[in-house]
């Protein structure tokens, strides 16, 4: 399957391992990713706080470029980028005049044909296409799936999963033999917007998230957003200081978790880049598949 690919700045910088793990998966799951030529910043977060038109024009340009390259579906892994692109597509889809105006600004016609996919949507597509996925090493761990705030909100724009208590990532985890835990902070704010200016708030917010995940008995946090990951991983020392407590629980990208289950090499997946070492306690009965089987017959296909 072929998808357009918009990595955005994070995946080329602080979240390189997200990019690497995606490309690694793509290699394994015959997913052909074609990077949007000459892509630019999505405008998050600064633009839409300052200039509405700019906040539409930036993503619109990316979308228009994709359309030119005949990419009608674009994978946008970073939740912030995803949210901006989706929002632009939504707003311009509502208002032809505005679309014309923005097309003028980027002096390229934006038709609105390109569809934006977040990483979960894309993975679901790939899995659906592949039908049977060879699970080399069931990801047999208790996992707290952390969606973050941007992937599911605002519902009328992204139209993806349940805005308050999403389930799609949990379903993926089951597919690879993991056990998602029920917990309360799936979509709570991690403080990304204030990561630099008010690190103390990040510590408080992200701290609670980690705390709740641990309480729910998770061995790992699985995320789908570079911002979230930065806060949960990179800021861990500050968080631990703030909370006065050590948290060994690692934070992985969903793509890395899947990569491990498919038996990809840790280096390929960029696990070594995390500050919190990815050490996952071996669990007694390697019951991934069966467990999954009970929960979701479809997943029985994994043997």
């Amino acid at each position: 399957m072929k998808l357009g690919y918009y990595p955005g700045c994070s995946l080329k910088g602080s979240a390189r391992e997200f990019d690497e793990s995606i490309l690694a998966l793509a290699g394994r799951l015959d997913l052909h990713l074609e990077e949007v030529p000459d892509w630019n910043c999505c405008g998050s977060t600064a633009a839409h706080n300052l200039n509405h038109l700019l906040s539409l024009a930036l993503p619109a340009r990316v979308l228009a470029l994709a359309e030119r390259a005949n990419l009608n579906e674009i994978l946008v892994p970073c939740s912030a980028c995803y949210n901006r692109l989706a929002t632009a597509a939504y707003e311009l889809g509502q208002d032809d005049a505005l679309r014309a105006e923005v097309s003028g600004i980027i002096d390229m016609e934006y038709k609105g044909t390109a569809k934006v996919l977040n990483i979960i949507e894309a993975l679901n597509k790939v899995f659906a296409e592949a039908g049977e996925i060879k699970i080399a090493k069931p990801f047999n761990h208790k996992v707290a799936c952390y969606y973050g705030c941007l992937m599911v909100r605002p519902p009328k724009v992204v139209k993806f999963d349940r805005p308050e208590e999403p389930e799609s990532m949990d379903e993926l985890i089951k597919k690879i033999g993991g056990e998602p835990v029920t917990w309360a902070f799936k979509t709570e704010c991690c403080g990304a917007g204030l990561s630099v200016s008010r690190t103390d708030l990040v510590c408080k917010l992200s701290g609670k998230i980690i705390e709740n995940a641990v309480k729910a008995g998770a061995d790992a946090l699985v995320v789908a957003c570079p911002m979230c990951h930065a806060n949960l991983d990179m800021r861990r020392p500050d968080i631990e200081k703030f909370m006065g407590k050590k948290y060994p629980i690692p934070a992985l990208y969903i793509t890395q978790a899947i990569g491990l289950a498919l038996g990809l090499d840790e280096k390929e997946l960029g696990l070594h880049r995390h500050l919190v070492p990815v050490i996952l306690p071996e669990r007694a009965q390697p019951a991934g598949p069966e467990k999954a089987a009970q929960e979701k017959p479809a997943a029985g296909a994994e043997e």
Partner: protein
Amino acid sequence: MSRIGVFICHCGENIAGTVDPAKVAETAAKMPGVVYAVDYKYMCSDPGQNLIKDAIKEKKLTGVVVAACSPRMHEPTFRAASAEAGLNPFLCEMANIREHCSWVHEKTDATTEKAIELVRIMVEKVKRNRPLYPIKVPVTKTALVLGAGVAGIQAALDIANAGHKVALVEREPSIGGHMAQLSETFPTLDCSQCILTPRMVEVARHPNITLYTYSELESVEGFIGNFKVKIRKKARGIDETLCTGCGICSQKCPRKKIPSEFEAGLGLRPAIYVPFPQAVPNKPVIDRKNCTYYLKGKCRVCEKFCEKKAIRFDQKDEIIELDVGAIVAATGYDIKGTDFFPEYGYGKYPDVITGLQFERLASASGPTLGAIKRPSDGKEPETIVFIACAGSRDPAKGIPYCSKICCMYTAKHAMLYKHKVHRGKAYVFYMDIRAGGKMYEEFVRRAIEEDGVVYIRGRVSRIYEEDGKLVVKGADTLLGGEPIEIKADMVVLATAMVANKDAEELAQKLRVSYDPYHFLSEAHPKLRPVETNTAGIFVAGAVQAPKDIPEAVAQASAAAAKVAALFSSSELSREPVIAVVNRLPPPEYSTCTGCFLCEKACPYQAIEREEIRDKKGNLIKTVARINPGLCQGCGTCVALCRVKAIDLEGFTNEQVFAEVCSLG
């Protein structure tokens, strides 16, 4: 030769502000057939009406056109005026130059021009109007009341006490509705059942009231004064004439673990059950979805123990046909469940409950006998958070309206809790406190000042479970939006009041209109609050909009008064705007060809077949005939008739044709 008078109203500045009435009058005066045209400040005022009356007499008018507001507003006024001056009221028509002209267009010549044309249209029409005379139809002096909650009960009693027969239909096994489920009522804190049950008994005893419980409306035909309704009496599975309500069947029933509807799921009931001890009638029903016999084909334990041998497993639903003259819809409301709230856990936390469930907890007859215990582990909650406006006033949730009762009952709940658990902490999250009502504000103050309930102005963004507590995250918007977290043992959501699931279906059966939220629409929001736009059908209680008990009861009595007025004479006169099939001298008799393609098209089955015979009684031809009692005047048959044998009084082909031609 017609002599038409045209009367142009200024409606103060409302019309004169944008339309030039003098010009309209002047032009109208020149229209063929018009012998008199005049403009005046307020036609609907007494002097205005006198102007018309005098003109009718002096100028010997054969038709009147009043160019003013919408006929939906003042047509009755001016037709009455015409009648007083001796002109058949149906020779008076209105041109709507306010709602359809002066109010919606700018002050330009085009607007005045339009007003003139609107007048011309009506002049051309009225020239062809015929005198019409009201149709008298008999009235069946029996009322059908749908729903036996407090509103239905009140309406039924009032109508019955006025000396008319009432059929009271309730879908549940017992009457009483939501009010029977409530613990105490605000603002007096008197016990709900204590004040309701005597009324329930009165209903059961009343000689004029026939009670149909566990029954539902099947269909409605006919029209005001002459409705034919079918009622489905669902099979109770017992012979009510034999059953003494001893209750042995329920005691012996082996299936006892069925969540009780009456207890809002907090209590259990057997498969053969009476919803609650004071039920009226006090006769059980067999819940076939859960009865072992219907599921597995054996059991019949109740049958063995019933001394009266009243159990009837083979009982079938029964269709009862009634003739009624009026219908009162009082089918009440429903509330949103906790599962409606993703941010509050999609109903997965047992200790997050609805206000109605709290009523059961607080009720002396409830599952906990009035002790406040949390559903999960039966512990007495030390901290309860009450959330007002759960769903209500939230466009994002599709419920932009205010449910009206939540502010009050939430205050009541907090109060009841504090009375029962003195050291307990009660918090209320609210948007605004809407306590408009006699003694209401005082009641809320009491909760805050005397019972120390903590009111926090703010919304709750999320509830989650941590360490066996429910963590309630919100913000206090009065204290600079400080985020707050309260660790609660129980959370009570004042969930939104919504229309019943099948409210839309009911509305369509009754042919009354309903609003976007499926509450039935009243005929006029201010002036006709208990009537619907279908004559003879009235609304009472929360079926029309969220209401508290006193309002529901008041509306019920109002509806009853309307019904009583309708029943005050044995005949009512209806607008003669109905279809007629032409009759001609022999040999044609009628241009109707008797194809009867109109028969099926009539929504009211008003088209009959009439056989025309000669003196010897030989059939000459069969032609259509319209039953004036059934015809509602929609005119569908008229448009359908190829030979134009059918015409619609008040909107005849000639009239409408002339209206169109007047535009040329």
